[in-house]
């Protein structure tokens, strides 16, 4: 990719100077650690390897899909269709398994399908020039609809036990789910890509100013297209894992999951307008949301209250930086000159 001329610094300064000087994600990570410590002491049954396993298993798919979606949000775009890709891949996986194809063939086919679905989003955004919000609201409905065409309201559930037990199993009885290992590899790859390569810097540059990025020689359209393809493939992988984890291929699998992924990204300090944020914060955001839910469930907080709590948490996370920035500029203005 022709991105060797990317000019953006690793901590891009936005107009208004509202960025904290701390490394991106450190605030939310501190919150996460604090919450985990407090919950371990005050919530019965929270600190145990079994509970950690339950918690991580719920986070795996959210964190997985958050990886490519973070890159997309950093460039200033959005992909709302990710959960529908999960559902469609789950449905296709069920249909093909039912037809007698081997899983070893079905899984690559699903990933290929994910690439195609991502490419459709990407081409509509980059070639046709439509806003990604509009495109992916459309494909959110379209892909979910196709999932129901493929599998209807049936469920395919007779996947081999060896595969489904792996999906819920843990590494050597530690409580850490097997799926965490491949996830860590993907996290490492994404982190290096975003934070240690010219490509990563070019993503921030696009998010800050697409025109400036284009003038400095970045192939904006091509980069974005590949990001959407990556989101499709990774969501398809999430669909495969989801299907095996629950042992049930259904068209309505993971419905609404996109909101949880986006919530983790925003809570992690990634600006919805692009150009700022990092992977550490996103992962901490995903873990924080899941831990809060888990801890509140353990103390029998009803689920509607739980939704309110996560909603408030999210608003606070998005609003708080704005308020501090406002307070800071106000304070600066009131200081007497000289």
């Amino acid at each position, binding site marked *: 990719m022709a991105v060797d001329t990317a000019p953006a610094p690793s901590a891009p300064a936005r107009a208004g100077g509202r960025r904290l000087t701390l490394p991106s994600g450190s605030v939310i990570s501190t919150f996460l650690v604090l919450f985990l410590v407090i919950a371990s002491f005050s919530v*019965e*049954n929270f600190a*145990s390897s*079994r*509970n950690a396993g*339950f918690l991580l298993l*719920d986070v795996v798919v959210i964190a997985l899909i958050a990886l490519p979606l973070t890159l997309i949000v950093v460039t200033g775009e959005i992909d709302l269709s990710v959960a529908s890709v999960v559902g469609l891949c789950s449905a296709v996986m069920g249909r093909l*398994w*039912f037809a*007698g*194809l*081997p*899983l*070893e*063939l079905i899984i*690559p086919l699903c990933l*290929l399908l994910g690439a195609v679905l991502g490419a459709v989003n990407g081409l509509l955004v*980059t*070639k046709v020039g439509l806003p990604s919000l509009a495109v992916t609201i459309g494909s959110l409905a379209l892909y979910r609809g196709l999932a129901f065409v493929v599998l209807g309201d049936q*469920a395919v*559930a*007779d996947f*081999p*036990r*060896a*595969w*489904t*037990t792996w999906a*819920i199993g843990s590494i050597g009885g530690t409580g850490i789910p097997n799926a965490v290992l491949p996830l860590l590899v993907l996290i490492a790859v994404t982190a290096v890509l975003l934070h240690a390569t010219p490509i990563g810097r070019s993503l921030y540059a696009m998010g800050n100013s697409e025109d400036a990025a284009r003038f400095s020689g970045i*192939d904006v*359209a*091509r980069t974005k*297209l590949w990001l959407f393809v990556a989101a499709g493939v990774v969501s398809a992988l999430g669909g495969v894992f*989801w299907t095996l984890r*629950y*042992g*049930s291929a*259904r068209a*309505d*699998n*993971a*419905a*609404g999951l996109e909101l949880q992924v986006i919530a983790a990204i925003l809570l992690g300090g990634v600006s919805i307008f692009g150009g700022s944020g990092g992977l550490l914060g996103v992962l901490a955001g995903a873990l924080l949301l899941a831990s809060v*839910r*888990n801890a509140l*469930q*353990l103390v*029998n907080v*009803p*689920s*509607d209250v739980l*939704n309110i709590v996560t909603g408030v948490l999210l608003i606070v996370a998005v609003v708080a930086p704005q308020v501090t920035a406002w307070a800071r500029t106000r304070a600066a203005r009131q200081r007497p000159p000289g």
Partner: protein
Amino acid sequence: MTSFLTARRLLTGTAIAALVVTTAACGGTTRGEEETAADAGAGASANPDADIPSGLAIAFLPKQLNNPYFAVADAGGERAVQEIDGEFSEVGPTEASASSQVSYINTLTQQGADVIVTSANDPNAICSALDQARAGGANVVTFDSDTSPECRDLFINQATPQGIAEAQIDLMSEQIGGSGQVAILSATANATNQNAWIELMKSYAAEAHPGLEIVTTVYGDDEDEKSFQETQGLLQTYPDLKGIISPTTVGISAAARYLSGSEYKGRVALTGLGTPNQMREFVKDGTVTAFALWNPEDLGYLAAYAGAALAAGQITGAEGETFEAGELGEYTVGADGEVVLGDPTVFNADNIDDFDF
């Protein structure tokens, strides 16, 4: 951008695809290769005389919260848990999805619940979570919607198809004096439950109430408007029609609405399966004399007692075992760990105000 599909890329892609297909073709994991693992079965033996210990933690996990049907069922469960001096809790997701139920099952496992009473959003997706809960010592009872039998100890079935069919034919026969033309207003043409009930209704009518002539079955597709129109059509096509049976809650309320505003009110009988809240006004205004449905409160009540009996060791879930369910009396475990609640409850002007669901 034209470089996106260069010959080189296409070639690489094709090569990878070919490789994958070849790998997969030489042996892979396909459907039907594996035999399902046999159920380990209950190891412990039952002691019918065991006392129910106090303080049992019995948790109800419905398909979703804020659903009136499950609110009533859970209230029945709560009453039963109070009677046996246990600790009742009701947890569950706000949306009816299997994955969020799994998260609640995990929480209950972690809390060490003695009994989990649940209605499954997906018969398979919550299985592995239930397995873990049982490995952690919980007894699992399903009600309303079952899981695969190997994932739970007992299933409390609301009613047998036979019981549902007979109740509706008996009600109709009583209301039209034992003879006359009757039509059926069903849900969709391929609705499994309704079709099974209709077959049983026909054979039971022929045998027990030969005066009843079932002239036709029409389908309202469980849509209010279509059911309404089908009712209208029935009355025009069959001028001598004495009664309509609608074995679906959507159908019966739409038919009642049509009848109550028409000249046929009080002349054409209507019965079937409905909820008291939907049907209250039509019972009060005389359009409908009586209809039936299982009582969700009794369903929850029985499920809680069944769970307590399991936790106490009175039963293990094996066929033929019996247990006491408070005011509902004695129940016997049937094949596949099923317990049937009993005949549907009949609602009429005398008792409809006692129910709120």
